[in-house]
């Protein structure tokens, strides 16, 4: 690990100022950044530890929504009674991620900025446009089982690894960011960028931009998170589905669908949603919608199975939600 300076500011202004300096990185739980520093992938000159900031509260919003401080630990958020009752998809997504020890450390803000687990990104001897712009992409013709099939480019097929983000995307979460120019609000669907020709630029955040909170609008009904992976626990998603579904008289009145493990960012499945909205809530409709969403998939030999897997997982998750709805 390269030697670095360490500062721990006690107010947001100081944190933003420190974070805006060249070579500075914010440190939350450290569950991703410290790993990357050990591997030499991240080499910050200054680590700005933000865990001393007052950003650890979960508060009810007047509109019935929820405001989640950026430093709330994943374990605490998953266990929060309001989250469990009103946003089960979020609680389930959090609990499906990492391990108990990691969730005890990982923060909401850090999780939003988690970096890919593409093996070539993690290996300094390999070509990776995300780690080393212009060096190429060894994943294209290498091990790409974990890689993305939607929203990819010829320069990068790395998948976004977060579970929490997929649930937040389905929930229409809004991210509050404080930067050198003040505070602004960014819909989560617009926080992350697709790789295009600049896969090393992953978000719209500028140096010094500090995520301070995530806001959730009022919950709209039944929701669930389904994660499919290569072992029962402690593995990243091959495919995950975050879904919210409301049905009245057999017709879909509200549908939210997001996918993980298949795209460079948490993927809101707008096409599938549009096809489902107002239509019948049956298996055939679920499958048609899933297939439409996956129609634009660009697969490699190692990840071609994700089209069928994502389709089936979407169908299974919606089927389960619709069954639950019927039972009520």
């Amino acid at each position, binding site marked *: *690990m*390269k*030697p670095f300076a360490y500062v721990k500011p006690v107010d947001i202004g100081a944190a933003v100022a420190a974070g805006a300096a060249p070579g500075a990185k914010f440190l939350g739980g450290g569950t991703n950044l410290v790993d990357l520093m050990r591997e*030499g992938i991240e080499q910050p000159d200054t680590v700005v530890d933000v865990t001393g900031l007052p950003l650890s509260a979960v508060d009810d919003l007047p509109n019935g929504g929820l405001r989640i401080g950026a430093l709330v630990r994943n374990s605490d958020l998953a266990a929060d009674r309001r989250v469990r009752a009103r946003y089960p998809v979020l609680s389930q997504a959090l609990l499906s991620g990492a391990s108990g020890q990691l969730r005890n450390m990982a923060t909401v803000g850090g999780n939003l900025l988690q970096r890919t*687990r593409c*093996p*070539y990104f993690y*290996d*300094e*001897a*390999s070509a990776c446009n995300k780690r080393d712009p212009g060096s190429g992409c*060894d994943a294209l*013709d*290498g*091990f790409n089982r974990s890689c993305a099939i939607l929203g990819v480019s010829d320069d990068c097929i790395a998948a976004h690894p977060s579970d929490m983000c997929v649930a937040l995307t389905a929930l229409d979460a809004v991210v509050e960011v404080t930067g050198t120019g003040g505070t602004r609000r960014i819909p989560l669907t617009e926080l992350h960028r697709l790789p295009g020709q600049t896969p090393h630029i992953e978000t719209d955040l500028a140096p010094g931009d500090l995520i301070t909170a995530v806001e959730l609008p009022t919950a709209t009904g039944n929701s669930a998170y389904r994660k*499919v992976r*290569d*072992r*029962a*626990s*402690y*593995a990243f998603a*091959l*495919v995950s589905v975050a879904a919210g579904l409301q049905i009245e008289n057999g017709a879909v009145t509200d549908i939210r669908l997001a996918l993980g493990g298949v795209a460079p960012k948490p993927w809101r499945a707008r096409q599938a949603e549009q096809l489902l909205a107002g239509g019948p809530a049956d298996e055939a409709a679920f499958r048609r919608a899933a297939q439409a969403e996956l129609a634009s998939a660009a697969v490699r030999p190692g990840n071609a*199975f994700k089209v*069928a*897997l994502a389709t*089936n*997982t979407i*169908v*299974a998750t919606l089927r389960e939600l619709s069954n639950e709805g019927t039972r009520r």
Partner: protein
Amino acid sequence: MSIQTETTTDTAPYVGRPVERLDGPAKVSGQARFAAENHYPDMAYAALVHATIARGRIAAIDTAAACAVPDVIAVLTHENAPAMIPAPKLSLLDLSTVASATSVNYLATDEVHWNGQPVAVVVAETWETARHAASLVDLSYEELPAVVDFAAEAPNAVPERSMPLMPSKADKGKAAQALADAPFSVDLQFSTPPHNHNAIEPHATTAVWDGDQLTLHEPAQNIPWLRKHLAKRFGIPEEAVRIISPFVGGAFGGKSRAWPGVLIAAMAARATGRPVRLALTRAGVYHTVGGRTPSTQRVALGADAQGKLTALIHTSVSRTGRVGGMAEPITAASRHLYAVPNIHLSQRSVELDLLSNTFMRAPGEAIGTFALESAVDELAWRMGMDPIALRMLNEPDRDPAGGQRFTHRMLREAYTRGAENFGWHQRDPRAGARRDGPWLVGMGVATAYHPSMRMPASVTLRLHADGTVVMRCGMHEMGMGSATVQAQIVADEMGVPLASVHVEYGDSDLPPSAGAIGSVQTASVAAGVIAASTMLKRSLLTLARRAPGSPLRGRKLEDLQARDSGLHHPDGGQTYAEILSAAGRDHLEAAFKPSMLGFVARMAIDSRRWVTGASGAQFCEVRVNADTGEIRVSRWLGVFDVGTVINPRTAASQLRGGIIMGIGAALSEQTLIDGRTGRIMNPSLSEYHVPVHADIPHIDVDWLNEPDPTTPLGMHGIGEVGITGVAAAVANAIRHATGKRVVDLPITLDKLL
């Protein structure tokens, strides 16, 4: 390491009792000191620099930036490192040559032979400094074409040399013709991936020189081999090397040879004149310690209309490294399991520009039984037969390949008991017939088999006047309970309370043990304990008979019983304390040292007379998600024939561990080696998927507990048999659940979509 045994006053035999692990308290309280936890004043820390090409030469190596880091003591490369003596070549006259893990003379050559080979070492005042400086060493290479893609190279494989102690080949009758003539047959191609070692303790060495005396704290599975190897490499007498290895944090075969870490640590310590600790990172273990070969295998079976097998063909292709490696007995179990008149077994291999393959729990058998036992199951499907009935029908009376008799064979009993206890008879024979919500449920079985072997082990027993017995043997405690079970045996043989037995182990200053390899250690050391006990008791009797008035005068040892800390005859006896006291001795010692030559001769004779092995029946229930293909093992039962079980507690743990490792091989484990670069792309526990707790159901293990008449106390080694057959049982259960036969490991969910 010396451990005082627990207190008990019970005098029933200790063998067979679930005695608690003697080293348990030290481990859970953190007092057990592992190799990387030994501290010396003035100790320095080392970190390796690894090559990032598969084959070529170092064109330039720039260490200026690394040397400039404050607190860096030395950066050793092929330009300035003191050269070691080259590794000895494998010779059957000196089995310690097996310790030569590779032929590379580290830091004495500019040649690169595998991607990950150590090409420099940084020694610094702290571990963090060493690691950072190592990242600053700048290398450029002249690359040469490398052959690293096993699948692409497999068609060019050449026949393998036979392994003298582990025969794998066989040719009996006309297998190809019999297969062609058989009314029922299967002919399947299988593949298994490479695996890497992931013991909980990454390899670590603490090396200290005192003049030409080398002391190493090193997790070792074979202290005598490693000691001799190091003496040769550093040009010092064997007696000048001390290896201290009281605790090994798991090994599974990965700590049985001299991998680069221990050699470079010793070299760095000598070059810098400082005690040096070199603790590998997890990735460092992947890059410098070999693993299990990948394989492609063909199994073809022919049967008559009743299900009697008429033909068995099992062939394999595996790989070694160009700089080292070994044949693994992949087709070996196929010699022993089925009564077939026509058998062809053969192995081929390729040499690749990769690190040597090496021992990994049941090398050969673990993956060979996957192919064989999957094919037997598939034949049962073809014939519409119950797979247990098919196996029962073809159970041999003598060894099918060699014709020898079995010392012990209870597979029928294992299957019968397992079927009963697992509820096999409730199984609907149709595929895909049982469903629980989205889950398809299936059951499968497979046979486990591992040969039983022994190696020479020296044991010294010293009886003290206070009745305590000290057992000294440089055996290896890797977590399986070695000290505990040998203490039980000593207590029984000498007729003393377990609490009176002290066991010293894990040190080259002690009498040399057999290695903890090939499931040989427990039985090998037990043979030494029995021999040393007999010697000691004979000496005691001799002493006693000299004493006037001794009730043992005129007695023969064969007429006496060792119990209550003494030698007893129905007409009277004496305690050891009385015997020693009467003779004016404060202790008496017996040292058993087997002759290697005699041992080998005996082994050769025995192998012509009979075949002996541990075996078992593995029962698996899986659930396969009909939507996603996710696979969950939901129940397991292994019924084993492992002879006498010395300690049910530690034995169950060993067998369960084997089964868990087998489930990993079945469902998730594989080393991803990039076919373009030879680079391991998943060198971490996050991306190399060993099973986690959530993957493993409760595992029932059971054994028949029938002693083998030819082994010490009737026991078989149990370290490896547990993993064999496991992958096949899983694959067979998946076949039952889904109707799909998966022939390529690991069985990941995409193969079932």
